[in-house]
């Protein structure tokens, strides 16, 4: 039986159209973050120019490491002539949080063809993980999930690399009056707030932040990792002891979200 392209329900063009739409939806939904990544990239690019590392090596790092905090530490440590084990080790400890993100993304990654998994994992960042985990709660279709993730990841990669090179080219002429550095905590904050949806996530965030601050002097930048693990443990404990109140907090958050206007990234429908 011949497949007519326009017959509703046939695979092919219509599926392609929806997946293409998912890719575009990914780019659209991450656009504000991609714009926010630009100044972060510029801050990093400026750090490269001010260091002893050649511009092209610093720029290459953005294309293949794709992790702002780790790259800033790496450039800093290379510039200080730290041993390579310390420089690379510190960058990897900072990136160890990606292991946790990949665990959270794993259920949806398992639905994707095997050949896609490694290239897609290369794009895991704070922004891709949070944006796609939120999207995955609203869409069960593996194809659309994958294309959405790719849209998000590619847009952020382009923005990060572009921001880096703008920073490298403009370098010292970027005035500190622009407060570009503030874009870094601001972006993490903009991601954090929508990810707090109930009591246990609030406890996880408070404990995570507090322990990270307390453990700030722990060598090799492991404070963040220790803080994150304590935050998750505390959140799980609080969830176990008060599932009833957490459910009511979630419904309150859901009501607040429903009342909020356009542009909301979070869909609370699952709660």
């Amino acid at each position, binding site marked *: 039986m011949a497949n007519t392209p326009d017959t509703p329900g046939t695979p092919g063009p219509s599926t392609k159209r929806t997946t293409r739409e998912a890719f575009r939806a990914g780019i659209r939904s991450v656009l504000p973050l991609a714009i926010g990544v630009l100044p972060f990239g510029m801050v990093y690019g400026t750090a490269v120019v001010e260091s002893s590392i050649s511009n092209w090596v610093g720029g290459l790092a953005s294309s293949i490491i794709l992790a702002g905090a780790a790259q800033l530490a790496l450039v800093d440590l290379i510039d200080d002539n730290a041993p390579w084990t310390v420089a690379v080790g510190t960058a990897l400890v900072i990136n160890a949080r990606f292991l946790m993100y990949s665990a959270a993304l794993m259920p949806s990654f398992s639905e994707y063809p095997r050949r896609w998994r490694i290239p897609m994992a290369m794009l895991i960042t704070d922004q891709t993980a949070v944006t796609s985990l939120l999207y995955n709660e609203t869409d069960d279709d593996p194809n659309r999930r994958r294309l959405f993730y790719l849209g998000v990841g590619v847009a952020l990669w382009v923005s990060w690399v572009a921001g880096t090179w703008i920073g490298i080219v403009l370098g010292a002429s970027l005035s500190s009056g622009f407060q570009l550095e503030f874009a870094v905590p601001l972006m993490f904050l903009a991601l954090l707030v929508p990810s707090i949806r109930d009591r246990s996530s609030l406890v996880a965030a408070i404990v995570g932040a507090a322990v990270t601050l307390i453990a700030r002097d722990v060598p090799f930048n492991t404070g963040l990792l220790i803080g994150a693990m304590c935050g*998750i443990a505390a959140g799980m404990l609080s969830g176990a002891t008060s599932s009833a109140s957490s459910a009511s907090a979630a419904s309150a958050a859901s009501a607040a979200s429903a009342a909020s206007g356009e542009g909301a990234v979070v869909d609370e429908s699952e709660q």
Partner: protein
Amino acid sequence: MSALSMVILAALGSLVIRSALVTVLAGVTIGPRIGRGLRLVAPSVLAGLVAQTLLIQESLGESTGGSTGEPVGELLFRSLGSWHVAAAMAALVAWRTRSIAITLAVGMAAVWLLELVT
């Protein structure tokens, strides 16, 4: 070791970190308990990153600590100022609107304005 080799090593290591679980454990069913824990990864990691980047700043100390993995300068709390106020405003907007775009716009506008008037 050259800077280029260190960048390549860090990239390879990061790839292993990012892809290890999704390739090795793909298809493994996750229990509800672990699933709950995984949902808490984003809030706890992001809160730690906010705390680190907003509240802490490295003092411009002498470069002595590189070889031991210690921070190069001393890690101090940032003195209270426009960053804190702008971040508080952005957090309030994020909570009310749950929109990343509006949060980023308000936060940057606030920090610029506060820097102008102070």
